[in-house]
Structure formats: C-alpha cells, structure tokens
C-alpha cells in the first residue's frame, strides 16, 4: 500500500509568507522606532549642551550686561560662548533666552532677599511641518554679588 504524502497547498504557502512578512515588518518597525528614539535622545543631549552654552555666557558676562543676552536665535544662527558657530546637528537648533529681574527670598532667613537675574534658556528644533519642538529648558538664578554692587567683576 502506498502512502500519499500531501505537499503544501497554495493557501498554506501564502499564509506562511504573510506570517513571515508580518514578522519582518514588525521587526523593521521596532528597529525604526528605536532609531527614531535614539535620534531624539541625541538631539536632546546636544540641545542641553546648547542651553548650557548660553547659560555659560549669561553667568560669565558682566552682571549689568546679562539682559543683553535676551532674545531669539533662529536655527542656523546659534553661537558658542566664544562667538563661533555651533556645529552639525546643533546648527539645526534654535534658542530663546529670557532674562528677568526677580529678587529671591531665602527660606529660613526672614527679610533676606537676593537681587539677581532669573535666566531661562529654551532650545528647540523644527519638526517636519516646520513647527517648533522644545528639546531642552534650563533655568538658573544669577544673584548680584557684593563685588558687582561695587561695580567690579565677580
């Protein structure tokens, strides 16, 4: 008696191919998502450096001239603390700096109020639609030191 061995039918082959294709698509999507997330992490890391760069300028310039740093730098116009252009991906970022005179009360020391500048630096890039995507925000308070009240550098 002969044994009849059935081959795969066309439907079985098609189902197998669809399953393999779906698995491949899922793997590709996962990898793509991972790469996109890493690209974002990279941009956030560099944006933090861009913000820190501006903050360096705000914390090292003469106290009285800090408000001059307030303003908006368009993507492509970012400068490092020494006035040179930012490189690579950093060049694609924009930056906003605000400086406000905000006296700070010191908790636990009634009546003690420090005068100084509240500095906020926001770094963003542009999404595919040209909209701003906030990447990093840095806030610091620069108190006015005794030397500065006497007109000297800190």
């Amino acid at each position, binding site marked *: 008696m002969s044994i009849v061995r059935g081959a795969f039918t066309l439907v079985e082959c098609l189902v197998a191919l669809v399953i393999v294709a779906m698995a491949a698509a899922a793997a590709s999507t996962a990898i793509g998502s991972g790469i996109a997330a890493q690209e974002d992490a990279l941009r956030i890391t560099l944006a933090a450096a861009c913000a820190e760069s501006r903050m360096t300028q705000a914390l090292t310039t003469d106290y009285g001239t800090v408000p001059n740093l307030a303003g908006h730098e368009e993507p492509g116009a970012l400068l*490092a603390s*020494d006035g040179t252009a930012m490189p690579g991906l950093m060049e694609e970022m924009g930056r906003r700096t605000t400086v406000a005179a905000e006296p700070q009360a010191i908790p636990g020391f009634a009546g003690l109020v420090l005068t100084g500048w509240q500095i906020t630096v926001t770094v963003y890039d542009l999404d595919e639609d040209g909209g701003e995507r906030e990447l990093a925000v840095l806030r610091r308070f620069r108190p006015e030191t005794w030397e500065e009240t006497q007109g000297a550098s800190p």
Partner: protein
Amino acid sequence: MRRPRAFTLLELMVATVTVTMVAGAVAGFLGTFHRALRLQDVRAAAIVRTAAVQAHVSRLLLESRMLLEQGQQRTLLWLPSEMLEDSGSGAESAFDLINLTAGELHWLLFEQESDGTWSLKEAVVDAATIPAGQGDRYFSVDANYWNSVFEDLHAAGQLTIFPIAEGLAPMARDGVVAAAPRFTYGTASICTNRALGIEFAFMRERLDDAGELTGEEELRLDVRLDEHLPFPDIHPICGGGS
C-alpha cells in the same frame, strides 16, 4: 504499481530561482537589520560619552578656581584646597603655595592614539612619586611655567593619566574638519577667563561585508560643549580678590 513522477527541469529551475530570491530577500533584510543595530550601538555610545564628558568636566570646573594653562590641546585646572580669604597673598602665603601632593592640579588633554583617533584624558600628579620636601610650587600666571611643570612631571613618570573619552575625532564646522579636537576659552588671559569650550566629534567609519573599514563615515556627531567656573577665585597676583 504507479511509478512516482520526478521533477521536470522547468520545475527545478523555478524552484531554484524562487529559493534564491527568498534567500536574497532574507539576507538583505538581515543585513539591514544588522546595520541598523550597529548604528543604534554607535549612536548610544555617542550619547553616553557626550554626557560623560560633560558631567566629568562640569564636576571638575565646579571645584576649580582658575584655569592656569590655556592651550588648544591641554588645559590646567587649579583646585586649591584652601579658601582665598584664609590665606592672604604674598610669596610665602598659603594661597601662593601649590603642593603637588595635594591634588590641586588637574590637566585635561587631547592626545592622538596610534590608530589616529583622539582621546580626552585627565592627568593628575601621582603623589607617591614626589620625594618628600620636593612638592612645592608657587603660583604663577606664566603659561610657560605650567607647561614646564607638566613636561617635567610627564617625563619623570610622575603623572597618572586616565581617559575620559576615547575614539574621538576633530570637529567639523561648515564642512571643514579641524586639525584636532581642541579647547577654547572665554578670554586669553587666565586672570579674567571663566569659560571653557570643548570641541570634538564622534566619528565611526562604515564597515564592508567583510567587516573591514571602508573610509566612509557611518556616523559623525560634532559636539561643542561650554562650561564655566561657577566659583572663580582670582589670585591677588592678577589684581583681583576673592
């Protein structure tokens, strides 16, 4: 009894072509998969190392009072162990005295390795190698003096040098690649400078199918970091105060 029919030549050829196409597609997919994973690794390393450099330098500058040497590939951070107001000034004052065994001097330097890549390193004095009574140095704003201190200690094997980040490359700006990674400063004078800039890049070459470097850039990440001295103490020799 019925004799089993063999495959025809046409069937075999169709099967061979089909198998080859499927194998090619699978190989292509796996290759793309592998390259994507490798790119992820390279990017992750760049992110982590950039953050590590920034954290390391920030911590050092937090404790530093001045940058005593301002070179493009080397800078010297001064981390005095005493407060300025406690020491006064003058040649014999404690503030003027820099003891090599007190951990007050930290050099940051870019060095090129034998494979052409650059490393950012930190050098500190190995206190155990300084003979008793020979560790005193006196404060100076002379860059040549600090250069000679480094060269002498380096030549005598009295420095401990360890890497902060390896596998670096010079930064590119507007498509022009610099000759080397470098440090920049807010001002040229150590008496007035409070800012340190660091320019470098992470660059990985693409590998071919055999795993050999192709010379093409797979990833380039140009990095510019700016840090400042939060608590500077300008030495009286500069005409400043605490």
